[in-house]
């Protein structure tokens, strides 16, 4: 890891001057249809269903999702995957609502904040669809912890060029804003509330209302990116408070106020429309309004490119899909650019402007180089993970290199690689468990067979000993019998161990095999013990029977001794044979799994052929041809491998470590 010198200079971006006479927000005419993305929520309506305004359309699918409500009355036409107004325009399930123009609403129920706890507030906000920067406005796991809140920051800072929606909101809905903060204060009981506004946003009306409540207004005049949650908390919270403070965006706070105080779900937001438009300004638009409808309302020229978001961090959206992409809660600003403003890139001229302006003290020109090379490892070593994706380097670069875009791309690439790795690890675990399971089943079967063979042998021995009446088993004979049983069990165990060893060498899975061996050993021990117990019991029974019969103790003659030894040896042979037979199949499988697989494949192919002959369809024929081709390929490869292996003087490849 490389260390960076702390570069002097810092960052002072000459932000384009902003008009702050924000015109009153206009209300958008009702669009003919609404396109509502279903992100982290599951629909609870059916296509074709008639819905009323404020009716719930989707429930949150996890603690990180929020619910979705109908912005107007109408009919659900379809639920289908569509491009979203998100970076990269990913496909996601989208609910399409055809407005009927009547705008019939469900009655709203005003809530009472005095009876809410932080947790019930968080749940209610999730139900009302009020989203913050990451999921629901109040994170559920935070609300569940029920820790005291030392500092609540209401973030009304807009520091990117073009963003003006919050300023307009504060001007127009100052009372609602103040009421919403009062509601939050009542429920969350923070020790201190700070209202962070940018320099020019602090209107006097707001100041007066705020001072009446004893809140603090803090004017943020540090340069970009001052409006970020982390930066604000670092600036406004004392070190003791920093860990537990909360920073909430002002527009979501207003929506939360409406949701709790008036029971109105979050169905619309203020959007700033800027740039090459006849009537730029802020509009109150329903969520799900198609972007083209918004831009046409503001008088966009026929041919435009869309940038979603502010002047520094905004991302381009495909303009030809503007009909299909709906507004979502994070669409603060839409820019309609003339299409040819992009481009004009040159090579990096090593001017160093980007590294002087980078607030994270990175070297964007180096990072860019590695990102262009798709060299994620090196880019990480140069601090890609520390890049806040603020976009300053991109804004100042005289060569107009797409620095921000490549950083975003590479950072996401890295994330997805991590994800794939996780999935692969998961698949490996499952595969190994499966191998372990198959191995275990095989061993269990072998042991069952061995146990049954031993049992049968014992039974035969019993009948054999019972047949000659004069040969009553003595305690000595019983001992012998037990010893034989034990020996047989030991032999079976040896066999299974041998089998295990073979399988260990074939399957290189040490951990699973160790586990399997441990399990097999314990099971074997249990079986041994059980068999020994059974043998002892039988011997005792036999002895008791002999005693109760009252027959005289017959001397164990030499002849009977011989006979017994003969029988025993024959039995042992039989048992061994049986065990060997039982073990042969799995052992072969281990030794030549490949051959078996091949045979199975051939069988399958033959089956397929038979099928194809029975009902020859073109698909089957195709498949058969494919399979044959694959088999031929495999065979050829195998032959080539064998050739290679047998080729004389083949240099040993050293094992690289």
């Amino acid at each position, binding site marked *: 890891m490389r260390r960076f010198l702390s570069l002097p200079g810092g960052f002072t971006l000459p932000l384009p001057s902003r008009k702050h006479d924000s015109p009153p927000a206009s209300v958008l005419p009702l669009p003919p249809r609404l396109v509502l993305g279903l992100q982290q929520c599951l629909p609870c309506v059916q296509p074709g269903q008639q819905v009323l305004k404020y009716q719930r359309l989707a429930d949150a699918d996890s603690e990180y999702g929020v619910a979705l409500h109908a912005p107007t009355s109408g009919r659900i036409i379809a639920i289908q995957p569509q491009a979203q107004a998100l970076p990269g325009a990913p496909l996601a399930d989208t609910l399409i609502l055809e407005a009927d123009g009547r705008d019939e609403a469900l009655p709203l129920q005003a809530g009472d904040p005095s009876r809410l706890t932080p947790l019930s507030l968080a749940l209610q906000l999730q139900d009302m669809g009020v989203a913050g920067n990451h999921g629901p406005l109040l994170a559920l796991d935070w609300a569940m912890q029920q820790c005291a809140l030392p500092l609540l920051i209401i973030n009304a800072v807009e520091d990117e060029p073009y963003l003006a929606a919050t300023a307009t909101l504060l001007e127009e809905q100052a009372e609602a804003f103040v009421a919403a903060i009062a509601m939050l204060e009542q429920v969350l009981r923070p020790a201190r509330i700070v209202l962070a506004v940018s320099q020019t946003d602090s209107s006097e009306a707001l100041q007066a209302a705020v001072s009446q409540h004893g809140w603090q207004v803090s004017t943020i005049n540090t340069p970009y990116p001052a409006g970020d949650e982390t930066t604000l908390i670092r600036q406004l919270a004392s070190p003791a408070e920093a860990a537990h403070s909360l920073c909430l965006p002002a527009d979501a706070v207003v929506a939360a106020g409406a949701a709790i105080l008036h029971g109105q779900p979050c169905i619309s937001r203020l959007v700033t429309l800027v740039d090459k438009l006849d009537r730029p300004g802020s509009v109150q638009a329903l969520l799900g309004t198609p972007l083209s409808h918004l831009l046409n309302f503001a008088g966009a020229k026929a041919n435009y490119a869309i940038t979603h978001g502010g002047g520094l961090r905004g991302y381009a959206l495909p303009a030809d899909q503007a009909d299909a992409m709906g507004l979502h809660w994070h669409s603060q600003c839409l820019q309609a650019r003339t299409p040819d403003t992009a481009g004009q890139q040159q090579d990096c001229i090593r001017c160093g402007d980007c590294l002087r302006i980078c607030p994270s003290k990175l070297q964007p020109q180096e990072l860019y180089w590695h990102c262009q090379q798709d060299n994620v490892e090196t880019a990480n070593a140069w601090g890609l993970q520390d890049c806040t994706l603020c976009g300053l380097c991109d804004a100042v670069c005289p060569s107009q290199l797409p620095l921000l875009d490549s950083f975003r791309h590479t950072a996401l690439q890295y994330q997805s690689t991590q994800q794939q790795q996780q999935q692969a690890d998961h698949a490996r675990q499952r595969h190994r468990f499966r191998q372990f399971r198959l191995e275990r089943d095989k061993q269990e079967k072998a042991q069952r067979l061995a146990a049954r063979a031993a049992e049968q042998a014992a039974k035969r021995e019993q009948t054999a000993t019972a047949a000659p009446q004069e040969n009553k088993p003595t305690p000595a004979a019983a001992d012998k019998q037990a010893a034989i049983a034990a020996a047989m069990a030991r032999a079976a165990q040896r066999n299974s161990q041998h089998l295990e060893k073979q399988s260990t060498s074939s399957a290189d899975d040490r951990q699973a095999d160790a586990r399997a061996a441990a399990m097999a050993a314990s099971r074997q021990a249990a079986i041994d013990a059980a068999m020994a117990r059974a043998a002892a019991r039988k011997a005792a029974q036999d002895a008791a029977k002999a005693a109760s019969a009252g027959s005289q103790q017959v001397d164990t003659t030499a002849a009977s001794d011989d006979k017994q030894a003969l029988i025993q040896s024959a039995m042992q042979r039989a048992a061994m044979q049986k065990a060997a037979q039982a073990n042969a199949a799995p052992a072969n499988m281990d030794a030549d799994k490949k051959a078996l697989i091949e045979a199975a494949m051939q069988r399958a192919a033959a*089956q397929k052929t038979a099928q194809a002959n029975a009902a020859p369809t073109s698909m089957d024929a195709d498949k058969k041809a494919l399979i044959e081709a694959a088999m031929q390929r495999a065979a050829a490869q195998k032959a080539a491998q064998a050739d290679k292996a047998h080729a004389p003087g083949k240099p040993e490849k050293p094992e690289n470590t």
Partner: protein
Amino acid sequence: MNVLVFIALLLLAVWLLRRVMQHNKQQPEHKDPRPLAERIDAILPQTQCGQCGHAGCQPYAAALAKGEDSINRCPPGGEEGIRKLAALLHTDYLPFAADAPPSKPKAVALIDESTCIGCTLCIQACPVDAILGSAKQMHTVLAAECTGCELCLVPCPVDCISMRPATSSPSDWRWGYPVIVIKAIKSEARP
């Protein structure tokens, strides 16, 4: 005497130089205690599809570790996988083997539940136990566990399993790859 001093100085200089060189030399990677086959297995995609000609990723990794196979046989790993293998084994990058099947985008198996006869053959084929069902009952694929190996397609006697493209979830978002616009520069008329 002078010669001795000179030799001593020379030795000192060499020793210092070596120290400096050693210090500057970047350690390429810290020593990984796992055996080579394990480390190779760790970067294989674990689709367990057998397209490399082995019975799974682990046997292929073992063959690679013994130097018995080439690194360009795993289609699910793609070029990126070959590059990783080449870096790990300190060999050169190889283009895909000509006889290797083409690499495909990730897909997930789907069982047509009305056609499934419950023969359990696909369960026995699935290397990651991603199919759920029992004899004479309808079977289904756990999409989250399916690696897309296609091994269940061949044994199915009624051909009711098909591969569908893996659904993209919001976590699969990609920023579009930054495209650099190429402009024609007016060539100056040569004399």
